Structures are given as C-alpha cells and as structure tokens.
C-alpha cells in the first residue's frame, strides 16, 4: 500500500526576469498548465481524487527558471526514484 503524499503545492514557473519573448512563453506555459489542471479536475470521474494530502500539495513542477543542472533537485533520503518518459515519438519528429 502506498500512503498518499502531502505538503503544499509547489509550482516553479518562468518569471518576468527573463526576456520578453521568454516571459511570454512562460506565461503561455502557466496558462496552459492552469487550464489543463482545471479541465482535468472538472472531468474526473467519480472515484478519482487529486493526489494531494491535507495541506494540498500535489506535485512539484521544476520549470525553466531553474538552472538545468539543478533541476534534478536534492537528495532528500528517498529510498529510490523512478524517472519516467512516454509518448516520446512525437518529440522525435521534426515540427512543422
């Protein structure tokens, strides 16, 4: 059995310190993610609940304002970690 996880939600998203173009991309990302989160919650079937505990934290999103080499985070004593990928095919095709 896996206990439900907890603490408050952490979103690290691009800030306005970046150039205008990057900031715009960041804002788009925030809007996209907020919309997708909202849409998903609205469409959840009965019996599904968001993965959060009493304090409301669901997951951590490490965004583009964090230097790449720091995105893996710190060792917090976890027993092990699973990194996962999927639907990678789309990223391997040229766009446009």
């Amino acid at each position, binding site marked *: *059995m*896996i206990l439900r996880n907890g603490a408050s939600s952490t979103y690290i998203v691009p800030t306005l310190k970046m150039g205008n173009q990057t900031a715009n991309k960041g804002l788009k990302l925030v809007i996209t993610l907020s919309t997708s989160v909202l849409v*998903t919650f609205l469409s959840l079937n009965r019996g599904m609940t968001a993965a959060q505990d009493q304090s409301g934290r669901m*997951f*951590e999103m490490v965004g583009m304002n964090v230097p790449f080499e720091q995105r893996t985070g710190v060792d917090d004593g*976890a027993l092990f970690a*699973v990194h996962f990928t999927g639907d990678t*095919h789309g990223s391997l095709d040229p766009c446009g």
Partner: protein
Amino acid sequence: MLVETGNFMADDRAAHGSLRSDAAAKDDWILKAYRELGVDVVNVSSHDLRYFSQVSKRSPNEPLLKRLVSANIGSESPVAQTLRPYIIRDIPARQAKSAKRIRVALIGLTETDPPPPTGFKIADPAEAAKLKAIEAKQKADVVIVLAKVSTQEAARIAREAPNVDVIIDGNGETFTPPLYVGRTLIVFTPFETRMLGELRFYRNPAGQFSTWQRFIALDEAAIPEDAAIKEFVDAANNAEIQARNNSKGLLSQWLLSGKGQTRDKTEQSESSGYVSSAACNKCHIAQYMKWLNGPHARTANSLLLRGAEFEVSCLDCHASGAKADIGSKTQNIECEQCHGPGRDHVAKPGRGYGRMSNIQTACASCHTNETSPGFDVQTAWAKIKH
C-alpha cells in the same frame, strides 16, 4: 531507475500496413539510443509492436528485448515470447547494511488501438493487470504498472486491479496532474516527454511507502549542446533520409529498366524466362485486349504515388517476372503472373502452356485480407475472365 511507458517508435505504415522502411531505419536508432541510455524497463505499446516484431526476428539477441514488458500482448510468435508480463527490479537499501532490499515489479499494459500486426492479439488491459498484479504482489514490495492507455482506462485498471500500487501512464494529454483511484496513485507522463517525470519513494518506520512526484522541464534552450549526441542525432536523421532515397532510387531503377533500356530489358527478361504481355499479343489478341483494359495492366500506378516507401517486395504483386530480379520485372501484372514464364511457349507455340490448376490459389498469393479486404475470387474472376 528509468522507465518508458510506450509509444516511442515511429509507426508510419506503408500502403498495406507494413512498417515503412524509413520508419524502421529511424526506429533502429531510437532503439540504439534507449539501449545506450540504459533505460531499465520499456512498455511495448500497440504503436511500438510492429517494429519490435521485426527486431525479434532479425536480431533476437538485441539487449533491449530483455527489458521489454507487456502483460496484455499475446502471440505464438517469437516476439511475444520475449515479452515478459512484468520485470522485478531489486533495489539495494540505501541506509543500514541490514536493511532489506526493495523489490519493485513493473507490469506493462497497452491500449488495443491501433490493431496489432497479423499473428498478435491484445487482451483487455484491466483484466491482464488484475491477474498479473496478484502474482507480482507476492514477489515484490511495490507493484507499478507502465501503461499506454487513456485516463479513463487507467482509472478502470486501478479499480479492477487493486494490487497495483502505482500506474505510470502515457495518456497522450498535454499535462494531467497525478490522482488517486482508491489507493492506487496514477501519474501521467507529460506530453511527448517535454518534461521528465520523477516519482520518489519513501518508507516510514512502520514499513509503509509514500511517494512524491516531480516534473522536470526539458527545454532545449537550457540543455547544453553535446557533440557526441549531436553526431548521434545527425546519423539517425541521415539514416532515415537515406532509407527514403533508397526507396525512390529503387523505384526509378525499376521504371528505367522498362523505359529507354528496352533492349537490355528484353535480354534480361528472356534470360529469366519472362517475355512480357507484348509477346502474347502477337497471337492472343482478344485476351490481350481484355487484360489491357483491366486493373492488372495498371498495377504500377499506385507505386508511383508512394515512391518514399517503395521496396523491391512491392513488385511481387505490382509487377510480373522473376522474384528478386528487379531488372526483369514488367511494369504491371502481366499474363505470365498467372500463366508462368512464356519464353519456351513463344519459341515453340503449342497446347499445354499456361493452364492454371487453381485460380483461387493464384489470386490469393497477392489478394490477401491485408491487401484486398473483402476480396472474392468468383466476383473478381468474372471481371477478368478470358
């Protein structure tokens, strides 16, 4: 541990459903990348199956085959025998030496679309999960499902297979936050792996597990250029382009063999015993005209529209002549496709040549369920009877 939930291979199909040669060339490099990256466990989705069915035949010792899982793909063919329903990974304890190792079972599941290649079947994923999770739970501390299914299907799997602790699902959506169905945690791979998913596991003094989910942005601008990786990617792109060019080149070679090189063509054809329908026309005019106005006289047309996926094997059913001899092939399906090489008959005309013992068998070699769905030999024969 690095795992893949599936749909990572190119699955572009040729006209009759086989994997295109340029897609297969690209997939060879994707496979190489996954092998060299050391991906631990890979779920074979219905989108990846066609390629892996090829690999298992031509490279049965490919190391990545040992890391593939699927609990709901079945077949009598060798590839399905290499697909294990689950893999158990032993993870050493990080703290005291006396601490127990953690055993993690990873079960593979796929959606049922697109339909599998001939010879394979895909069972209901929830049913397969239910059966295999019971078994895996007896051998492992944590049971994880790697799935390529919709959000609703992932929820159904969680409901019907309560022994599953975590489902990692590629649902094809832009971003779906983690959620629980009962006690099963479901996390989703971000769209096209534009973020790397991370699931950390902890255990409290009572031995209960808990998790924490992180999603790490993989924006290209932040990732420094790596000369070795660039060389790898360039080589992969070149292989794909080369495969397409090879196809177009082969098609051109075949077309040229029938135009502007008539003399060579005739010599090659005669050496293989084929003389083309033009030779039949000299005596069998009515039959020749029937053929000329029928579909078999135009079987090359469809090849011209699909040059990038052309293979010599296309000519087995779009042209007549000796197998594997592109130079001797005619430009369409001609008289000798059914009646056999006519060189000797032309040299010494007489009865006995070209009688067909079984029309059904002759037609069925090309008109299969895959190439001609709904084909009926009697209806077809009525149209070309001569």
